[in-house]
């Protein structure tokens, strides 16, 4: 059920000068969030910035009794609201509306799951990894960043039993280059018979490449798009994505309602700014 919580900030861990994790006492949202869903946030009563901003739910927080106690957001500073989220202090509050959007489909064994994350595109994959691993799905994280200092939460994924394939632009951790390189290599090496689902979140060009690889090797892919969203609820038609409809026709669909997760194949990538 959709709710709006004026959530207390429990902690703010600054991971780097650009990335941080904000933990929020929004148990009601956490309790009903599925992997890949998002919340729309805003702070206070100021009318500038005006609109809420979409953020993936990064973690579902649990208390000592393993009851859901909140959520966290993985934030990367790019502008006004992400800048504010970086400086927010425990004790302050953040309005969170959610959960919203269509989640990833959680594939089950014997199929394998390959998650491909670029930068802050890691955000939806921690909850997905948890769901996949509780279903005992064989799960890999292909994760690329600019440098070693920009790859986060590796221990956490490892502790869930996720196989890691890391890349950095500068080669300071894992393989040097783009995250699509090991992905392509492993796809080539894969036997045709292995059922597999690819999940991707990151820069548009990365997702496009992943969707193309999925198409080429005939594996289904799901990408989580980051369109500009005015409302998150289907009211404004700002967040549209050009989609190939089953009939061959082209259509603008609202990524807040029908996404943000889409089959990679359905998207007309040329129409995404």
């Amino acid at each position, binding site marked *: 059920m*959709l709710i*709006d919580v004026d959530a207390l900030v429990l902690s703010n861990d600054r991971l780097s000068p650009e990335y941080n994790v904000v933990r929020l006492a929004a148990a009601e949202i956490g309790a009903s969030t599925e992997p890949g869903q998002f919340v729309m946030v*805003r702070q206070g009563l100021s*009318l*500038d*910035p*005006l*609109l*809420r901003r979409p953020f993936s739910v990064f973690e579902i927080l649990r208390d000592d009794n393993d009851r859901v106690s909140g959520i966290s957001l993985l934030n990367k500073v790019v502008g006004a609201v992400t800048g504010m989220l970086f400086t927010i202090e425990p004790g302050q509050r953040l309005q969170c*509306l959610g959960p919203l959007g269509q989640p990833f489909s959680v594939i089950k064994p014997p199929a394998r799951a390959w998650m491909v994350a670029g930068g802050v595109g890691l955000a939806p994959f921690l909850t997905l990894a948890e769901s996949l691993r509780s279903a005992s799905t064989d799960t890999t994280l292909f994760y690329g960043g600019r440098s070693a200092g920009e790859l986060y939460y590796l221990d956490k994924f490892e502790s869930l039993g996720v196989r890691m394939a890391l890349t950095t632009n500068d080669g300071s951790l894992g393989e040097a280059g783009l995250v699509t390189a090991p992905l392509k290599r492993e796809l080539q090496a894969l036997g045709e018979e292995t059922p597999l689902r690819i999940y991707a979140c990151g820069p548009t060009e990365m997702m496009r490449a992943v969707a193309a690889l999925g198409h080429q090797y005939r594996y289904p892919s799901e990408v989580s798009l980051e*369109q*500009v969203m*005015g*409302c998150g*609820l*289907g*009211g*404004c*038609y*700002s*967040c*549209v*994505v*050009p989609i190939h409809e089953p009939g061959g026709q*082209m*259509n*603008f669909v609202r990524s807040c*309602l029908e996404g943000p997760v889409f089959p990679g194949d359905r998207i007309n990538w040329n*129409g*995404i*700014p």
Partner: protein
Amino acid sequence: MAPNLSVSLGSSLQLKNPIMAASGCFGYGVEYAEVVELSTLGGVVVKGLFLEEREGHPPERIVETPSGMLNAIGLQGIGVHRFIQDKLPTLRAHGATTIVNICGSTVDEYAELARILSDADGVAALELNISCPNIKEGGITFGCDLGGTHDVVARVRKATALPIIPKLTPNVTDVAAFARVAEEAGADAISLVNTFLAMAIDVDTQRPKLSNIVGGLSGPAIRPIAVRMVHQCRQAVQIPIMGMGGIMTATDVVEFMLAGAAAVQVGTANFVDPFIWPKLLSGLTDYLDRHQYRSAEEIVGTVDLAHSDVAWISS
């Protein structure tokens, strides 16, 4: 006793309360059925409809600006027939007071839309969108021309017995003149304002931020201009006014009503807070209680101008 919130927008349109969802900011209404009890709203003005389906503009379709936003959705829509078939029954089932915002490229299209919607079950009124700033054909070309405004209103008047409410654009020198023409041509009420034609440029790419180059500015940034225009129109016409532009709180609702709006519409604020509706309603009720009014209609147009000229120099 709780104050009476109901207001009348002309002889054939009675609203439970003066607070309505603005066109294009509430989808087809059905999207919000889980968020707010649609029947509790004064009305739901649905997204602008053409006769036919429209794909709208490519993204980017919106950009935020200081205390406002630009949109150039381009009236993506399902067309009137699919609306009547797929959406109207749901709206009816939820007990919504549905006002349909219609848009045409020609006067004939407006008339045709009006005829079709007159036969549909569950349409309370028609809002004539002659003010959309971000489509090329139709729309604002009628709204920026007194003759064009007259033609559309007069032709739709002939085509339907439904209450008709032309929606005026603020992108004119003298909005009151358009209000008068609309009244003369047979409008039951007018609504204003639609958005302000505006533009934003990304200095890094040196390109417009919107794919459509220009878009319409809405949100609290425009409120003071919208309030002024409502007040000007209140002095120019007898028919009721639906006021809008930047309403975010119950205080803003009251401000528009004092300026002369018999009812208000809320657009952009619904994006910021989809749970705003009960807050606005209870805020309005509180205001009326606090100031000991028995009905919402009592405050329409009652802004007190007498004290404005502080005669300090004579004292």
